[in-house]
């Protein structure tokens, strides 16, 4: 299998710029929440990375934190990158929206908001629910979501 990861020197350059980031064996980048937007801006705008395609955006509800997962692709270089960031605040999870960088984030962020209740800041009127009706209570993909009438696990 061919390798679609970022070359080491580019990774090093990123590391020096964002000291808070952690890189896993598989080259999944984990960022502190504050670094997210500068990091994303850097890898999108810098022609060395040119991550112009946001493939996937989702979120996982772990017991102690929410983890946002972004999958990025660079068309010109062929790199792929998985970026993760943790939202420690489980009561009022908030994260800056990435719509200014990739418009494709719009519907995916709405989906995440709808199903997991992550609030994306920075764009007025966004996010709104996308699948469920406006007055639906709760966010079904959260682990603590209980719905009466559902099948016992």
């Amino acid at each position, binding site marked *: 299998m*061919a390798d679609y990861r970022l070359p080491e020197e580019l990774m090093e350059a990123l590391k020096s710029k964002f000291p808070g980031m952690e890189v896993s064996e598989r080259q999944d980048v984990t960022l502190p929440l504050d670094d997210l937007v500068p990091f994303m801006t850097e890898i999108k705008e810098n022609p060395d990375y040119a991550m112009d395609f946001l*493939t996937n955006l989702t979120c996982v509800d772990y017991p102690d934190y929410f983890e946002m*997962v972004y999958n990025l692709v660079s068309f010109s270089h062929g790199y792929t990158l998985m970026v993760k960031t943790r939202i420690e605040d489980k009561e009022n999870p908030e994260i800056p929206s990435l719509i200014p960088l990739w418009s*494709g984030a719009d*519907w995916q962020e709405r989906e995440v908001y709808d199903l997991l209740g992550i609030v994306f800041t920075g764009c007025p009127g966004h996010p709104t629910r996308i699948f469920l009706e406006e007055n639906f209570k709760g966010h079904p993909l959260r682990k603590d979501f209980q719905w009466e009438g559902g099948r016992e696990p």
Partner: protein
Amino acid sequence: MKTQTYYLNLGPQHPSTHGVFRIILELDGEVVVKATPVPGYLHRGIEKLAEARTYTQVIPYTDRMDYLAAMLMNWGYVEAVEKLMGIEVPERAEYIRVIVGELSRIASHMIATGAYGADIGALTAFTYTFRDREYVIDLLEMVSGSRMTFSYFRIGGVAADFPEEFYPAVKKLLDQIPAMCDEYDGLITGNEIFQARTKFVGIIPPEVAVDYSLSGPVLRGSGVNYDLRKVRPYSVYDRFDFEVPLGKNGDCWDRFRIRIEEMRQSKRIIEQALEQMPEGPVLGKVPKVIKPPVGDAYAEIESSKGVYGCYVVSDGSPKPYRVHFRRPSFINLGYLGKLLEGWKIADVIAILGSIDIVLGEVDC
């Protein structure tokens, strides 16, 4: 004279929204001023359901997403789980996957082509593509025992090897596919009215297509060469020789035409796969109880609608902690609201049809 815009509620029960999809149109006469797509009428919470099932039990749920190309939906999910567990898939299984996957793609594109004809008003196109799709579905039934929701893929391979009678049948079908495509071209593509309705309608510029994360024929219709089978070959796609058809203008016409071309290319891939297919087992060494190690994995395949991705998180138990599906139809719809502005009601249908959505997949 004072004119006023009015709202037209297109759907959720409408013959041309390909299911239960709703668009709230603000119209000035026949011209769309603002369009708000409202999905969610087929939301079943598959991602939530998956958390209460074992890894193998999730496979039938993936069928219910893009039920027109269910094989490909299986594929994305099992690929992610295999990546998570590090399972080696036997070569024969990979070839089988390619063959059934491409057959599924052909079936899906046939529906897209015929339904698009029906959207434009040529109902006859619909019956022709559905007639031909039956042959493809017959083949897949021969393989999996089911006609629509196959659940044929298993983690580590596929459920069963091809039966003997499959080989002559698939050869017969492959010989007919160029003639079928020519028939669609003659009936739909070549029609003057059809061209007038679709050319330079609903243009998506390439940079916008990339910005909005569109994929599949919608992205390639805009001329962006991004087909995962070519740029990041998964499975054994790097061993086949095929072309990626691209559009020029990014209009409905390009998106429609690409699908017919892709059917021809799929035929080439299947032919090569049948030729190269090695002997061997169809299911790899997989533990009885599938218990992936703690961790996560994201895998992508090129489905008939676009890039279909699956993100699986495991906490070490036999049930997935979290499954997320990146559904191409859903994300391709993200640009619809902006795209529709300024077009007429008839174009709304033409544009929506050219994106080729399946609501089971959009709403998941």
